[in-house]
């Protein structure tokens, strides 16, 4: 479904990603794990069209998205939830959700999609008139997820869902990912929280210093000595 081939990305003169290749298949949950500063967010930014890659390619459902602007990427069916949710703080819950359906094709269907999101997250319906900045941490998480769903994506990309959340909320966030998959959305997540990501993902890649050093099914990676030593502390 999503295919990244030999991607090289620079910030100024510094090369962040080296020859990164990976694949996400339809219906999968795929995790990309690695330490802070490994280049995980840069990879998502490059796929989402925020950073142009120097070389390599990004293909989604057979469509070339290399260097495409963010709106073309959303249009193609990829929703990106950046770290921290990046809600619009001074807009209401309802308006944040509407912005998720900003594309013209989505805007026409925003009523039906709102119903769907409210079904999944009844709390958002209760809070729909509140400003996003007044929500609790868990509610923000729901809103960010709901806003993603408003675009009716085929693939959702999630950057550090667990970052800064309490253990209970982390669990809820990962449960939401399962729920997305049950609703037919493919999930690509990047995480520092290796253990929990491997528990939920089908497959995973390990990124170190901008290079993919390991890949395989989650159970294979759980058993790998390198992962156990470097990331699981076993």
């Amino acid at each position: 479904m999503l295919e990244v081939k030999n991607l090289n990305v620079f910030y100024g003169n510094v090369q962040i990603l080296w020859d990164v290749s990976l694949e996400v298949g339809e219906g999968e949950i795929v995790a990309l794990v690695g330490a802070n500063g490994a280049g995980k967010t840069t990879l998502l930014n490059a796929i989402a069209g925020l950073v142009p890659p120097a070389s390599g390619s990004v293909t989604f459902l057979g469509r070339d998205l290399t260097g495409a602007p963010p709106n073309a990427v959303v249009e193609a069916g990829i929703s990106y939830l950046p770290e921290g949710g990046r809600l619009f703080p001074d807009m209401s819950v309802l308006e944040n959700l509407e912005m998720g359906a900003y594309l013209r094709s989505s805007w026409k269907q925003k009523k039906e999609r709102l119903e769907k999101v409210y079904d999944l997250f009844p709390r958002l319906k209760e809070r729909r008139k509140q400003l996003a900045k007044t929500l609790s941490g868990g509610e923000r998480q729901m809103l960010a997820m709901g806003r993603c769903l408003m675009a009716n994506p085929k693939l959702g990309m999630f950057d550090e869902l667990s970052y800064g959340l309490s253990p209970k909320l982390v669990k809820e966030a990962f449960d939401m990912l399962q729920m997305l998959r049950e609703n037919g959305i493919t999930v690509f997540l990047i995480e520092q929280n290796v253990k929990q990501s491997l528990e939920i993902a089908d497959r995973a890649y390990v990124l170190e210093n901008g290079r993919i050093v390991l890949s395989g099914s989650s159970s294979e990676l759980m058993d790998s000595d390198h992962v156990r030593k470097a990331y699981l502390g076993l």
Partner: protein
Amino acid sequence: MISFINILLNGLLLGGIYAITAVGLSLQYGVARILNIAHGEFIMFSAFITWMLHTTLGINPLLCLAVAGPLMFVLGYLIQKFLYKTLKDKTPSPAAFEGSSMLLAFGLLFVIQNIAVFIWGNNIEGYTFMAYSVYLGDIRLSANRLVILVLAVLICALFYLFLTRTRPGKAIRAASQDPEAAGLMGVEINRMLALCFALGALMAGFAGVLISLAYQLQTTMGMQYTIIAIIVVVLGGLGSIPGSLIGGFLLGIFGSIVSGIEPGLTMAAYYLLFMVLLLVKPSGIFGR
């Protein structure tokens, strides 16, 4: 008592002008991060177009809202697309852009002003429109200023509805709060910036038409309105349209009180208020 009500009413009449003067500047700075020092020149230009159309062709100045407004919109759009966009692409960081865009606006100020002086000269101009009084009980109000107030409030209200109820309006607000996140929703940021600048110019255009209904015009008057707009925007909080409205009326009432004491000191009192605000509450009375 009467004089108190008089001062208040005069302040409101003045405040309408101030509010509509500030709304456009607030939008341009709040979203596009361009402190448009040339804002007042757009107002002046629109006012002179109205004056010219009225005095030479006899066109009703109110109809000029439909001419001068859209003309300024197109002008603003082109300026953003060809000048500011190019400048932004060539500027390394957003912070540097805020500085360099202000210098560009300074350049625009002189270009527009000189063109206006070339076309219309440097004399004080004006025309009479609805120059009669209406009475509210014992209080006498000039009809044209009342028309200005009503139209200014109406236009600001419509503009507010546009920003809060429509798809492009919501995109503008989202882009002002987090441009990158708005981009991820599919908002085309560059188009949004051009639209914002053009809308700011449109509001300046409307302000110019309204000002010409009752006030004297001069091709060098732009700076005065830019300063007033900046003070109102600081008073009301950047990027907040209701803030600009309330700020406009507050400044209007303040101005009306000062000019009741000593008319010659009005502008000086505005600057003083501005400086005090910057020192005491730079985020504005209603700012975050």
